[in-house]
C-alpha cells in the first residue's frame, strides 16, 4: 500500500475517478486496474467506462491491525462492493460502526481522504457510505 509521491502522480487519477475497464472482445467489466489484460477471455484491448457510484456491499472485513499508512483509522471496515454495472470493487466503508455493517447494504461512492503517506502527503480516493434515505450526508 505504500506508494511514493511520484508514483501517486501516475496512479492518482484512477484513484480519484470511479471507473472500470470494459473488454473490447468479450465485454466483461473488470476493476480499474485491469488495463493490460482481460482476466476472463485474455483479450488485450480494454477501454475505460465510468461508474455511477452505486452498489451493494457483498462482503466485508474489519481491520484491527492496519498498515502504517492507515494507522489511526482502525478499526475500519473494508468491503467488496458489487457496483451496479456488475464489477467488484474493494474499498473502505465509512460513516457506519463496524458492528452495524451488513452484507446486502446499498452503498454509494464518496471521495475522501484515504490515508497519510509517510512522506507527509495526503492521498484521496473512493470510500463508500451507506446509501439510505435517512443516512447522513456523504461529505
Amino acid at each position, binding site marked *: 500500500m505504500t506508494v511514493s509521491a511520484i508514483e501517486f502522480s501516475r*496512479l492518482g487519477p484512477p484513484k480519484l475517478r470511479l471507473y472500470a475497464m470494459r473488454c473490447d472482445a468479450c465485454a466483461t467489466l473488470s476493476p480499474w486496474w485491469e488495463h493490460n489484460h482481460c*482476466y476472463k477471455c485474455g483479450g488485450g484491448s480494454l477501454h475505460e467506462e465510468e461508474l455511477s457510484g452505486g452498489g451493494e456491499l457483498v*462482503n466485508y472485513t474489519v481491520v484491527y491491525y492496519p498498515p502504517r499508512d492507515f494507522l489511526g483509522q482502525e478499526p475500519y471496515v473494508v468491503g467488496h462492493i458489487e457496483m451496479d454495472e456488475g464489477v467488484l470493487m474493494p474499498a473502505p466503508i465509512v460513516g457506519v460502526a463496524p458492528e452495524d455493517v451488513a452484507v446486502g447494504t446499498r452503498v454509494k461512492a464518496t471521495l475522501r481522504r484515504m490515508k497519510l503517506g509517510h512522506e507527509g502527503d495526503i492521498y484521496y480516493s473512493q470510500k463508500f457510505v451507506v446509501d439510505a434515505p435517512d443516512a447522513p450526508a456523504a461529505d
Partner: protein
Amino acid sequence: MRVGVLGIGKTPHKIQHEKSLRDLVVEAGRKALDDAGVGPSDIQALYVGNVGSVGFNFENSTGLMSAHHLGVVPAAAVRVEAACGTGAWALHLGCVAILSGLYDTVMVLGAEKMNDLATVEGTSIIAQAADSKEEYFSGLTFPSGVALTARKYMQVYGLTEEDLAHTSVKNHHYGARNPYAHLRFECTVEEVMRSAKVADPLKLYEVCPMTDAGSALVLCREEILRAQPERPQVYVTATQMATGTWYAATDTLEDAHALLARPAQRAYAMAGIGPDDIDVAEIYNSFAIQEPLGVEALGFAPQGEGWKGAADGSTWIDGKVAVNLSGGLLCKGHPLGATGSTQAVDIVEQLRGIAPEGMQRPDAAIGISACRGGPGAVGAIHIYQRLEGEA
C-alpha cells in the same frame, strides 16, 4: 521422478532477537549438511527462499550472502521469491536442478528474519506480497484480504465461526507438542472465539504469528541416496507449481480451490498415487480458513466440508489423513521464505519416523505438502515417499 532427501535441518521457529538473518541461514544450513553427511564443498547449487530481506533487514542479495556464510562458494547460488510460496519454490528449483542432470547435490534453504521491525512495519511489508499498489490501496492487509475469503466461504457453505475454530484447536493441540513451534499452547473453541479480533471474522488464534526461522534440505540424485542404504530412504516423488489470481477482488472460491487442486492433481499423477494413499499432510494455514481450502484441494474432502476433519477427528493424528501434525503455520508461525522448506522438513521427519512424541503418525510412508501465497497467486505441491529396499 525421485529426488533423494539426503539431509534436513531447521532452527527453532520463534522470535529470536539474538539471531540475524545470516545466523538463521547458517544454523539451518549447517544442520542439513551435518545430517546429510556432506560438507559445504559438496553443494553444487544453493537455492535460498527469502521474501522480504529488503524490507525486514535492509539487505538484498540473500542468496549470495548465504553462499558466503555457508561456505559453499564458488557454487551457484540464487535467491528465490514467490510470496508465501517462496520456500516451496526453492524446493521446486532444487528438484528440477537434480532432475535436469546438471547437479548431483544441491541445497534448498528458506529463511526469514521478521522481528527486527514493529508489527505495523511487518504488516506493511507482508502486504507487498499481494497487490500493494492498487488493490491494497483500499486499506486491505494480508489478514483482511483472507478474512474476505473466510466470510465468503462461511456464507456459501453455511459455517459458523465456531465451526471454523476447530481448525485452530487441532493445530494448537499438536503445536503444543512441537519443540520447534512458535506458539506452544493448547486452546479450546471457546478460547479461539474469545481471542482478539484481527480482521473480522478472523481472530488472533486463527492468524499465524510473525516468526524468525530457517530450514534447509540437501537434495541429491536418486543413485546417491540408494548407495547409502543405512540412511533413511525418503524421496521427493512429485513437484508441481501453479499461479492463480493476483487480485483478491476477482478471486472466487472456485479460484481459491483451483490454486492448489490443479497442481495437486498433476502431482498425484506424477507420483502415481492418489489422495487415499497419503498418511501425512502439511497444509499452508497462515490463516485458519486456508486449512479447509487445502484439505479440499488435495482431495481429502468435498468442497465446503474441509473444515469438518478438525471437528470430527478425521484430520487428527489417527484420522484418515493426518493434517498439520507440526501445528501448522498457526503454531509454527510463518517465517515467509522458510515456510515451504519447513513444511518439507516436517514431512521428511514424519517419513523417517523421528517426529517428536505426540506428533508422529505411526508408519507414515507417504506425505504431501501444500503451500499457497499471494494469497491467491501461487500454489505449490510436493509429494514425498519412504521407499526402503526398492531399486
